């Protein structure tokens, strides 16, 4: 990030202590009444000025949701969710009818993002930092998108990058064709809730043959108390196109749990590629007691629809009280490829159950899974993965590697790989290791003058390197720092 944002990050660190993004923005907010009902669904749809088809879709999902059971198979433990005790819509009053030009955005919001180190002012980005590639950002604050940068420049290339609310209005054909095609509302209870009450998120369409001229990113922030965030992201890469997309997230420190149930759908056509990266840093809850923190229940799935389609998920998960997340790939097109690179760090009382599903349908489909789990404190960290080879997936290949690193004696690491192969020609390889942080390594570093926390961050970043190196350059450095921050308090 630029030097300005570094400074602001440091300021925020002083304000909030351990969790650097833990401050609250004091801004006037418009909220829906508390609780969940058909009326709330109508309220959200109305607020967004949505067409009837969208409201109908939401209501159908809502009715389905009422009947669906909670998923209970993950290795996470929390009291039953009280869906009536949360707000489902909160928007900064100044946001008005949705995103507008940056000049009209409430200065308090701009300030918030500056504190977080998210550059929004296009001119500054372009003028200020030469050695940094500009990144287009869509910014979602609680339930609404407040700004999307570099829209014009992207438009020249034919790329559509806007909030999902705008896309519903301006590109209904695309939204209707693709929304719910990869993650249908009834997929699981959390995804179903999202389908009913999603408030904002990003929409990307890359036309045939276009290589998106810049990194795209969305930055999610939950600010309001007791407010769920239900964003929905839809990315379509048409034939022969390419896009790299990154999402980042933070929330203030709150004693109450905040629910975040997102859905991300990716559609990749012939010869196209999507590289999707996540740096997740939601508030993890209190270090000692585990009170508060975000419940991060996310459904992410990519459909490699066409031949030679390629998807790569890279995630660095350091935050949230509970992470329940399995970015997956449906490899339908012949020769299509799916990749999943994951670093999940849990500390304090955090719980993470994360992994991927690779569903091989087409011929010669390939998948690659590299998972690095790091557990510290009294946390629990589970890798859960499924590799499924369907009968027609002649010549399918999978390589899976799961490495777990334990810091201290009070944390847990678990690896749960499921494999289902229904084609004899498929070749699957699986490797797994579990190790403890080595005293020899720590001592070697401290003898060289590096203090124990920094030594730990260095060793863990080394352990996770195979994954970290898949992040876009612009974010890799920040992600490495985040690794260090999230391990604070785990040694000594």
């Amino acid at each position, binding site marked *: 990030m630029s030097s300005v944002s570094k400074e602001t990050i440091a300021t925020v660190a002083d304000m909030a202590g351990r969790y650097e993004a833990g401050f609250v923005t004091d801004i006037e907010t418009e909220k829906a009444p508390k609780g969940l009902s058909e009326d709330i669904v109508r309220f959200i749809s109305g607020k967004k000025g949505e067409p009837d088809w969208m409201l109908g879709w939401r209501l159908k999902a809502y009715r389905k949701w009422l009947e669906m059971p909670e998923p209970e198979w993950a290795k996470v433990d929390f009291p039953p969710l009280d869906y009536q005790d949360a707000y489902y819509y909160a928007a900064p009053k100044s946001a008005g009818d949705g995103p507008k030009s940056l000049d009209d955005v409430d200065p308090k919001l701009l300030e918030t993002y500056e504190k977080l180190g998210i550059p929004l002012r296009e001119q500054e980005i372009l003028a200020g930092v030469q050695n940094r590639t500009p990144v287009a950002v869509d910014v979602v604050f609680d339930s609404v998108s407040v700004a999307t940068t570099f829209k014009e420049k992207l438009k020249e290339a034919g790329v559509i990058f806007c909030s999902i609310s705008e896309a519903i209005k301006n590109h209904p054909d695309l939204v209707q064709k693709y929304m719910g095609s990869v993650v249908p509302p009834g997929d699981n209870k959390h995804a179903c809730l999202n389908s009913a009450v999603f408030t904002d998120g990003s929409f990307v369409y890359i036309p045939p043959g276009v290589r998106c001229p810049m990194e795209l990113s969305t930055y999610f922030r939950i600010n309001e108390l007791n407010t769920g965030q239900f964003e929905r992201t839809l990315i379509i890469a048409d034939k022969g196109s390419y896009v790299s997309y990154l999402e980042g997230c933070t929330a203030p420190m709150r004693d109450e749990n905040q629910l975040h149930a997102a859905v991300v759908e990716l559609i990749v056509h012939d010869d196209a590629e999507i590289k999707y990266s996540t740096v997740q840093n939601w508030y993890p809850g209190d270090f000692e007691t585990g009170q508060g923190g975000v419940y991060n229940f996310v459904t992410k799935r990519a459909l490699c629809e066409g031949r030679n389609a390629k998807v790569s998920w890279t995630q660095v998960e350091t935050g949230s009280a509970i992470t329940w997340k399995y970015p997956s790939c449906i490899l339908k097109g012949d020769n299509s490829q799916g990749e999943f690179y994951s670093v999940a760090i849990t500390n304090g009382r955090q719980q993470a159950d994360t992994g991927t599903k690779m569903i091989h349908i087409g011929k010669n489909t390939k998948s690659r899974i590299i998972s690095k789990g790091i557990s510290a404190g009294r946390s629990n960290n589970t890798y859960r993965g499924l590799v499924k080879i369907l009968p027609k997936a002649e010549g399918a290949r999978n390589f899976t590697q799961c490495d777990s690193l334990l810091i201290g004696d009070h944390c847990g690491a678990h690896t749960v790989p499921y494999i289902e192969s229904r084609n004899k020609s498929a070749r699957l390889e699986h490797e797994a290791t579990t190790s403890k942080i080595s005293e020899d390594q720590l001592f070697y570093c401290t*003898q060289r003058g590096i203090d124990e926390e920094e030594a730990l961050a*260095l060793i863990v970043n080394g352990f996770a390197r195979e994954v970290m190196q898949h992040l876009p350059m612009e974010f890799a450095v920040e992600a490495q720092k985040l690794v260090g921050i999230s391990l604070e308090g785990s040694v000594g």
Partner: protein
Amino acid sequence: MLHIEDLHASIETDDGAREILKGISLDVPAGQVHAIMGPNGSGKSTLSYVLAGREDYEVTGGTVELDGIDLLDLEPEERAAAGLFLAFQYPVEIPGVNMSTFLKTAINSIRKQRGADELDALAMLKRIKAACARLGIADDMMKRSVNVGFSGGEKKRNEVLQMAMLEPKFCVLDETDSGLDIDALKVVADGVNAMRSPDRSFLVITHYQRLLDYIRPDVVHVLAKGKIVKTGGPELAKELEATGYAEFLDEVA
């Protein structure tokens, strides 16, 4: 420079605490090179670890001062910043952390503790390149993970490289010669000799006197069963070469 007095240290084993250093006293004035020789298992590595502050060992008595600073009171990284460097007998592998990142982090950590500005990437690169050139280390070694897949000779040379870069005032070399062929040994010795200066001292731990042909010590000590049993000039090393350690093992026992 370094002043050790009646140092006792033990380690926790399954059968309770076991004393390994049994009252070591040693004085290494500024500018001098002292050698410590002794049979396997006599406590040489233990002494180096205790000086560097490894947690597994409990100091049960005695004092260690470096230029008047009580080392035993400091964390390992603080001892490093105070000027203590240990070239490990068995350098540790750190997968995924490349040498230049590691060196950068170490140098800047020490500079920070000493109140100096951090070096920027360019200045750092220049220093690393210069030090590599002096020690005949190929640049591409800096892109490899710390000690991972290094040959025995590369590992030892890497220890000397780090020693040169961190500018310590007191260097402990724990069997840096073992496993080296004569050419590698010379490179290591040249590296050490280039660093000799009136305000830097060395404690060279070795099993064989061969290294001492290249790094000429001012004083030679014999360590056996956790005690220093004999001290003399360089000629003592030659004597040991001829007679072996048997007499000391008997003397103490």
